[in-house]
């Protein structure tokens, strides 16, 4: 019989969880998770994934995954008993929610665990772009200040018009922070939010033409794929800056590269890219771009909070209790 690569000897009575990816949270908390669950880890097996799933995962009811797993849909087709998918991502765009709903599979996600961290990074990237923090830090650490004199003047944040795309939890956290900087907030969202008083735009182009910075805080789905295209960048204009800590594919990356190279927008702060971990080489020469390796959510504190949430969701599932952070399908599938 093929060897099952699990922590079987110590965890025979523990509920079984299939891990796909593995997600980053798993790499940090593997030991802790293995004390609570019997973990199926296909990457430790020499046999192909499809075969592994056919042999070992036919009775598996729970899957732990993340946005790194592009093949989740095809994997789920080989798992007849799955009833729960737990993702460690904020956005469930890597999950075929329609199919899950059809099959009665519940999905739990990271919910608001990361909202503050993502908002912090979005704000941090914008401050960095406008005030040239990373560029100046790099300049100084080469010892050039006494030789080359002062770094060029930067741009003030106060009074700038901030256009937030997607005013969900993260968007609202960004708005709250930037209001304290004296910025004027407007937003575009699927629907107007009655509880906020910021000016609302139905059209992203119109928002862009009335903003000094666009901060993307929406989920990636069919409607938001390449939402930021040439037209929007043109509307944003030569003094405009774009900040993306959401998903790379929300921006037409080729268009963005061209606009930055030609000076048709003033700068960008990017935590996400269309083809991670590949970053457009042309941008690497520009000092008005600040890069971040999809790390908006990766703080020690949030990882611990995420671990608690993942475990909480799995334990709730196995005890037939309500999930802590279920995806409401209607919220994501319009």
């Amino acid at each position, binding site marked *: 019989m093929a060897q099952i690569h699990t922590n079987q000897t110590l965890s025979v009575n523990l509920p079984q969880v299939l891990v796909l990816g593995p997600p980053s949270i798993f790499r940090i908390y593997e030991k802790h998770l293995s004390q609570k669950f019997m973990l199926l880890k296909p990457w430790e097996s020499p046999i192909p994934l499809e075969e592994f799933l056919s042999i070992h995962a036919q009775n598996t009811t729970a899957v732990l995954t993340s946005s790194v797993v592009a093949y989740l849909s095809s994997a789920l087709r080989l798992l007849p008993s799955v009833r729960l998918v737990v993702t460690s991502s904020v956005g469930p765009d890597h999950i075929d929610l329609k199919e899950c709903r059809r099959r009665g599979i519940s999905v739990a996600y990271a919910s608001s665990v990361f909202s503050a961290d993502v908002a*912090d990074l979005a704000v941090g990237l914008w401050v960095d772009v406008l005030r040239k923090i990373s560029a100046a830090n790099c300049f100084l650490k080469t010892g050039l200040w006494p030789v080359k004199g002062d*770094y060029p003047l930067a741009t*003030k944040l106060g009074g700038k018009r901030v256009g937030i795309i997607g005013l969900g939890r993260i968007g609202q956290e960004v708005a709250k922070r930037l209001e304290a*900087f*004296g910025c004027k907030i407007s937003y575009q969202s699927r629907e107007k939010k009655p509880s906020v008083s910021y000016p609302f735009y139905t059209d992203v182009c119109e928002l862009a033409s009335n903003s000094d910075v666009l901060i993307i805080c929406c989920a990636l789905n069919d409607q938001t794929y390449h939402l930021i295209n040439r037209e929007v960048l043109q509307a944003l204009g030569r003094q405009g800056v774009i900040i993306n800590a959401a998903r790379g594919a929300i921006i037409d990356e080729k268009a963005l590269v061209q606009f930055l190279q030609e000076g048709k927008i003033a700068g960008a702060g990017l935590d996400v890219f269309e083809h991670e971990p590949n970053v457009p080489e042309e941008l690497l020469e520009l000092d008005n771009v*600040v890069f971040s390796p999809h790390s908006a959510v990766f703080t020690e504190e949030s990882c611990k909070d995420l671990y608690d949430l993942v475990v909480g969701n799995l334990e709730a599932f196995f005890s037939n209790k309500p999930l802590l952070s279920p995806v409401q399908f209607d919220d994501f599938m319009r």
Partner: protein
Amino acid sequence: MRWPSFFHRRRRKFSSPQGRNQNLHRALRILSVVSSKLMENKGVLMTCPMSSYLEEQLQKRFRLLKLWDSQMKADFLKQNSQLISAVVGNTVLGADSELIDSLPNLEIVSSNSVGLDKIDLVKCKERGIRVTNTPDVLTDDVADLAIGLALATLRKISVADGFLRNGLWKNSDFGLTTKFSGKSVGIIGLGRIGSAIAKRAKAFGCPIGYHSRSRKPNANYKYYSSVIDLAANCQILVVACALTDETRHIVNREVIDALGPKGILINIGRGPHVDESELVSALVEGRLGGAGLDVYENEPEIPEKLFQLQNVVLLSHVGSDTVETCKAMADLVLANLEAHFLGKPLLTPVV
């Protein structure tokens, strides 16, 4: 007596609203020309290059003398000392005792900064020399930068930028950073800038504590009478007070130790606020968690040991260095000089 008809015509012209308006504009034009002529001859000494816009405007309106034009500064001052009525200085070079003593006709020092540590205020008071600075216009920029530095330090934004630029993301993960939101922030000096920093940090859910010469009755934050207590009770310590004899090295070894290996120091005040050699040792030895620095004890020299540290972010005294604020500061310097020479109240007097 019958008045001549031309007199009646003039009287009608002056007494009508249009007439009064025209008169006013004419008077203002005359006054403007007279004022310009008056100020053109006023000698203004600029101590160092600080703003090309300010330099242009000073050149247009006054008789501008640039201290850096001559290698032999002492001779330059001797030759021109009688001419100089005003000094425009900044955080690099102000008006110290020696300079003031060499200028017998000095009437006003208009500093292109809010900080006054480079001006001998006592001497100015003794000689009746007016002093102005540039408060308020730069408050927001400096506060923005303090938060930007804290975010950059805790979230390793600059390190991450370099990680990607060097192609390292293709083969490895970046690793975890530290959350900013919710961390306790301790502010040394709750003046205009300190208060603006507190307002921003609050929006990130940070509890605020502060130390000041005295408790601020309108501040809703926890007050600490000792800097060490403040440092022991916060995770991010921000220096935002003025530099005086009392605040020199206010952040010393004891304060750094109280802040501890998980604490970070943000300095947007003045380099001498911090005992720099103690700061460097603490960072190198891991006794302090990190630092975001905009100022240093001997600018533009920065201790080289800081260059390799990933938990340190360095800037070159750019707290107010935005295009918009530089212009606003320069306009305030000019407005103060004009007010002085035209006998009007100064806009932002210190002395």
